[in-house]
């Protein structure tokens, strides 16, 4: 079984994000870059599927700048077999990213694609679903449990108000939610091995996907800051204020 895992490079979730004064983007000095946390979970799931089935291949794919090699190497060190970096200079919108990924899927012909449910920078939560539609494949978003038996796949999904279970034949696209698994760390031997693994670069233009941007980011502004209130001395004072001052209870 061949599993394709999509990888995006994002600021570490612990980084404090500051909007540039001219609104053109965020300040990137002092930003530590990591694999999107949901993509790490996607990769972990792919590795577990491979381990469970006792074979197969886990291929990473990223659509981004040369610097994204760093995150792909980390993914290889975690255990992926090889990686593909589709070099794209400009930030593409989700539709274009999905189109590029669809081209890669048509070339690579994986049995399964696992993406993160959302990139924690743009918070779009779109690419996996868009990719599934472009391929005409089933999708299981927000997966918290994946079971594969032969070419049949069953997924438990985090829905509103409970857990939904869906089933479908492979190939398919799954998007990983937080509770799917706990990603492993790259081991030292893993890091050594990763250096020798294949990391292929392809220029995005060579794939012939429609890249015309339809979503244009005009400007970023910092959100209004919420004023901190006051500390209260006791529970009695707190409940009293909620009643008489805030009038919420």
């Amino acid at each position, binding site marked *: 079984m061949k599993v394709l895992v999509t990888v995006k490079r994002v600021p570490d979730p612990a980084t404090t994000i500051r909007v540039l004064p001219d609104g053109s983007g965020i300040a990137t000095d002092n930003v530590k870059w990591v694999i999107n946390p949901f993509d790490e979970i996607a990769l972990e799931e792919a590795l577990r599927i491979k381990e469970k089935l006792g074979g197969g291949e886990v291929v990473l794919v990223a659509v981004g700048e040369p610097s994204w090699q760093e995150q792909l190497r980390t993914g290889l060190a975690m255990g992926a077999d090889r990686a593909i970096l589709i070099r794209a200079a400009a930030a593409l919108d989700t539709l274009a990213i999905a189109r590029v990924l669809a081209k890669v899927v048509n070339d690579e012909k994986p049995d399964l694609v696992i993406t993160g449910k959302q990139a924690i920078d743009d918070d779009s939560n779109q690419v996996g*679903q868009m990719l599934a539609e472009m391929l005409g494949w089933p*999708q299981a978003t927000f997966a918290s449990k994946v079971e594969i038996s032969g070419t049949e796949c069953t997924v438990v999904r985090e829905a509103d*108000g409970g857990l939904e279970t869906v089933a479908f034949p492979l190939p398919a696209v799954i998007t990983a939610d937080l509770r799917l698994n706990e990603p492993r760390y790259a081991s030292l031997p893993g890091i050594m091995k990763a250096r020798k693994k294949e990391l292929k670069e392809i220029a995005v233009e060579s794939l012939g996907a429609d890249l015309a941007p339809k979503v244009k980011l005009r400007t970023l502004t910092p959100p209004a800051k919420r004023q901190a209130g006051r500390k209260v001395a006791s529970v009695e004072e707190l409940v009293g204020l909620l009643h008489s001052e805030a009038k919420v209870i």
Partner: protein
Amino acid sequence: MGDVLVFAEHQEGHFPKTTLVAVGAGLELARKQGGACVGVVAGARADELAGELAAYGLGKVVVLDHPALTGRLADAYAQALAWTVSRLGAETLLATATAAGKDLMPRVAARMGAPMAADVIAFNDDASVVRPMYAGSALATVELQGKPRVITVRATAFEAAKPVASAAPVEKLTPEFDAAALKMRLVGFNATKSDRPQLTEASIVVSGGRGLKSAENFKEVLEPLVDELGAAMGASRAAVDAGFVPNDLQVGQTGKVVAPALYVAVGISGAIQHLAGMKDSKVIVAVNKDEEAPIFSVADYGLVADLFKAVPEMTTEVKKLKHA
């Protein structure tokens, strides 16, 4: 004509507040675009539900009638909704960014080759929209170029539509699509059972974090306060990951976004990912034993205390207040 088509999601036979928010947002956008706002209902009991929806000021309600639409599966719904947008010539397809909205809308967008913006919090007069990014650390002004376009709105950013005197006409359509090509099956739904108000509907939310330490403590320490206040219960990711409470109670960047009149954070440190889901609440209370905890930077009222002592006291005080 800038018509807006609103996807009217229903859960267990009724419209949650989040759907009425989509209608409210759709009506606002249609006014701005100079078009009509049309609701679309599909699935179980769609006929009856369409009748209910018709009361909320829409220009028209469309019922999609097709056997493949019983189970709200993404492959079938994407085809049916894309067909409907094209059939009605709508300019915008809109839904709330619920789990179902997030699941379906990008797939419809891809089918139509349409640009999409998720979690929109405002419509500007020049047709651009505003949406948070980076867990709410930045607000982006975004242009969606070309028509149709797809938008999900944040449930806390728009007013729910209210019933009006006249009812909209209801029209039944049978969408045309290749049902034989569909591959997804619904196996089952395991509902989180609760008699409490829904997290996204309650006017008071009490959330617990890792500080609660166990599922038993959620039950014995936090729940009495939740129930005394008639509140919904929420949680931080750490509490959900530890298995203290069900997944769908997670508040935050990658969970639910809430903005009740009162939000009480108990034993929650206030990581940016948590704040992203609650910082627009009207009044915020934090109970934490660490006076440096970042949650205090957004709290209107902060109590530095051991929650195991403070929360039972709060329950008693609230009870006293009610019987006063």
